[in-house]
């Protein structure tokens, strides 16, 4: 009997607001422990939360980007549990009445486009961090509350995902949107994009869901894939051996590549959610939602489709170029300056990305700007420089920041395209090789290459190959 996996994902994305969700402390990553704190995020007695309006706008943008309905009224709730990284003893989150519901995200799978339902998006604050056995305190755990109170959105899918690959495709696509919107940096290692997976299996064709396990601690796309794949196999194994899958929370061990039980359903927390009395219900009126809608940038999928239809480049190219908003913008600027779209795509995906990756530079900090890319493409097209030499020029532009014309000039890379000059060189070469001329004329076509080589040698490699070929052919056959 075959089994079908059923997967639902919960993503926590940290919002890129300057300050925390309920106080004025900076929300940036890092910093010496407990230096980005105040009485509010330390949970001092008597302090109260005040909602960061920017965070709400960011969350609404995400909701709109994935087609959610933004609730005019949503309610913050307290999620109660004790842990040293949770200063108030409760997390302010949303529960019964989240910010947004009923959205979706389309992903590309081998079987085509698939729609993944998004159940809800809600806002909440992050907890702090524990440092165990840190320097100077073996046996002690230290609490760092810099992160406590930073704004998160939780994005929950319907159980629509059917394979580890679909899960990864969904996450990549979701992450891309968050980054496009400029509301999350998408950094998985630093924890600004985190994922929990609910995994169950059921006999193929069955309607009823199997018992699910919740997987935690999966902080890279590869781990998501590995953890889900392992868990599916594990649950199928349990079923096939006549066992019952238990409802539990499991932790992914990335070293061993396995999931291990963390706590059972019986040990699960009772979070005692209730409406947060310190915050009035959050009202996001329709007019404000409309206003935010107008600020949404073009999203990755729309951009990809437009690149294919407007610029006639292959879907593959469009995919690479739109993988970041900055790269897409870079490409598009070059094209708008007159570069032929496919040629520009080859340049950006090839030389530009290669050099950027080599140096570890972000595209927006590239020393070579799009006008220079457009210029070099134009120079190749005009025959001013050969495409081989152009690569050299580009590398030089990259390391010195000089203009392409200047490099071509100083390095003497200008291509020789003057027909009279080339014809003169060809005449000289033919004259110097009467034997080979005779052999060529008697049918040894292969000697054409020999003549090209000799002409190029005479031109020190700078002759325009197209022009050389054309004139040489004329002269040899006359």
């Amino acid at each position, binding site marked *: 009997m075959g089994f079908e996996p059923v997967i639902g994902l919960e993503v926590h994305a940290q919002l890129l607001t300057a300050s925390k969700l309920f106080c004025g402390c900076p929300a940036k990553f890092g910093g010496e422990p407990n230096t980005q704190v105040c009485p509010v995020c330390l949970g*001092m*007695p*008597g302090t109260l939360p005040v909602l960061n309006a920017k965070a709400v706008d960011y969350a609404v943008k995400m909701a709109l980007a994935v087609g959610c309905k933004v609730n005019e009224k949503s309610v913050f709730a307290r999620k*109660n549990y*004790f842990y040293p990284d949770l200063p108030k*003893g409760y997390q302010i989150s949303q529960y019964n009445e989240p910010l947004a519901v009923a959205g979706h995200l389309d992903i590309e799978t081998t079987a085509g486009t698939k729609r993944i339902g998004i159940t809800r998006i809600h806002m909440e604050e992050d907890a702090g961090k524990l440092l165990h056995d840190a320097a100077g305190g073996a046996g002690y755990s230290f*609490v760092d509350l810099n992160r406590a109170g930073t704004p998160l959105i939780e994005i929950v899918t319907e159980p629509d995902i059917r394979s580890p690959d679909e899960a990864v495709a969904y996450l990549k696509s979701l992450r891309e949107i968050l980054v496009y919107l400029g509301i999350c940096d998408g950094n998985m290692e630093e924890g600004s994009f985190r994922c929990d997976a609910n995994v169950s299996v059921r006999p193929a064709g069955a309607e009823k869901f199997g018992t699910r396990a919740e997987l935690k601690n999966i902080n890279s796309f590869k781990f998501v894939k590995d953890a889900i794949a392992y868990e599916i196999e594990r649950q199928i194994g349990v079923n096939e051996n006549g066992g019952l899958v238990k409802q539990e929370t499991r932790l992914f061990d990335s070293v061993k590549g396995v999931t291990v039980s963390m706590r059972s359903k019986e040990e699960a927390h009772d979070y005692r959610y209730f409406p947060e009395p310190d915050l009035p219900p959050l009202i996001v009126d329709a007019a404000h939602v409309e206003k935010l809608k107008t600020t949404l940038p073009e999203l990755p999928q729309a951009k990809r489709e437009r690149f294919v239809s407007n610029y006639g480049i292959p879907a593959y190219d469009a995919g690479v170029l739109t993988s970041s908003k900055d790269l897409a913008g870079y490409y598009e600027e070059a094209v708008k300056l007159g570069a032929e779209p496919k040629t520009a795509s080859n340049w950006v995906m090839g030389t530009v990305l290669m050099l950027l990756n080599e140096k570890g530079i972000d595209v927006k900090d590239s020393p070579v700007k799009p006008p220079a890319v457009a210029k070099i493409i134009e120079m190749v097209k005009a025959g001013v420089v050969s495409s081989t030499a152009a690569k050299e020029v580009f590398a030089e532009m990259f390391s010195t920041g000089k203009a392409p014309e200047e490099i071509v000039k100083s390095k003497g890379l200008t291509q020789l395209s003057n027909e009279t000059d080339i014809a003169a060189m060809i005449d000289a070469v033919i004259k110097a090789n009467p034997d080979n001329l005779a052999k060529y004329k008697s049918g040894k076509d292969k000697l054409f290459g020999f003549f090209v080589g000799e002409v190029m040698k005479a031109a020190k490699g700078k002759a325009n190959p197209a022009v050389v070929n054309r004139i040489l052919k004329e002269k040899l056959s006359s």
Partner: protein
Amino acid sequence: MDLTALTLHELTDKLRKKEVSSVELTNAFLKRISQVEDKVNAYVTISPDEALKAAKDADARLADGVNLTPLTGVPVSVKDIFCTKGVRTTCSSKILENFIPPFDATAVKKLKDAGAVILGKNNMDEFAMGSSTENSAFFPTKNPWALDRVPGGSSGGSAASVAAGECAASIGTDTGGSIRQPASCCGVVGMKPTYGRVSRYGMIAFASSLDQAGPITKDVLDAALMLTAIAGRDPLDATSIDSPVPDYAAGLKGGIKGLRAGIPKEYFIEGMDFEVSSAVSKAIETLKKLGAEIVPVTLPNTEYAVSVYYLVATAEASSNLARFDGVKYGLRQDGGNLIEMYKNTRDAGFGPEVKRRIMLGTYSLSAGYYDAYYKKASQVRTLIGRDFDAAFKKCDVIVTPTAPTAAFKIGEKTQDPLTMYLSDIFTISCNLAGIPGASIPCGFTKDMLPIGLQILGKRLDETTVLKTAFAYEEAAGWSKKRAQL
């Protein structure tokens, strides 16, 4: 003349006329405290250094004559539930016995900005949970009118300090009657404003949706002056109301001719304490003589108020008090592991009543019980609010007794929490509805124990409540009586 027996506004006059300086006044109150505090125990912390420094600043301000308020230079006290920067704030709990906040509560900051001199921090029921101040982890406060009796609670220290002349005025907090009931017990004026009228920032939370700060004073004008000083929208409290603060003192005069005073039948029940009911009946007669129209009203859901209150308030408290875990500040009792540390800390740090309420609240929020308890209570709370909306269509204020009895004996109810809970039977609905309410003295029992009259008003209509209280006070004169120690 005994300066400490005077009202706040009388002291303001003396300061303005330069008959006395703020430093002299502060010293007079500090002396009074040293004389009577042994008997009354109204303070957890007295802060003479900070007080005298503030008094010097106030004197400079008075000398300049600029930026003066009625509070400038006047010595006051604050309930130890308000965080005071650099001065320990205990909430009368072991768990915060040595807690020194790095910030001022907004109400405290407003008092300081107005130029008031803060003499110290008043004793209270631990975390404001109680009606007698016997739940203080440190010591009970005594009623200045009868030292073997409770001052009421939870703001018992504040009310007793005002009644004993240990300050000119005080601020307390009221979650289910904690300003009005002790004011009633101590023969002083106490006012719980509309929920959100005074910022809760820096006020240690008991039940966030019910807690409200307000003045406890010797007379109604003082209450109006104090309320004007502390009220207003606070960007640090999202539940504070964004509505202009009227000059409450200016609104007191003019009488109450034509005012409709509602009398809810549910508050005048069989078997009520006779002395209380007759004092309140006489007060109603006085209001009538002053030109008020007496209107019978009904608040049908009153019988559920105590139950609703003890579900909602304890639920919120169970969550609010979770932060006292030994990790960051306050008491820590180590243990073999994290859970043991939590248990040891909270076991040693909280008193029995606090533990009882945390357990009640945790229970009512638990999976499987939430709908039957917390949720149902929230629904009934809405109905209680609607009762008031309906009643206020027929009247401008509602008049009731503040408490079912005068101050009871120390120890009388400590073994019976349920009886203790009934001390707040007349005050709780006001918090559930979020409306303003005041208690003013309306007579004495034959044993010379004060009796309080409660006046409830429409949301944000503190002015009418205070105006009614002022008219009654002028006619009845009870507020002029002082406890003899």
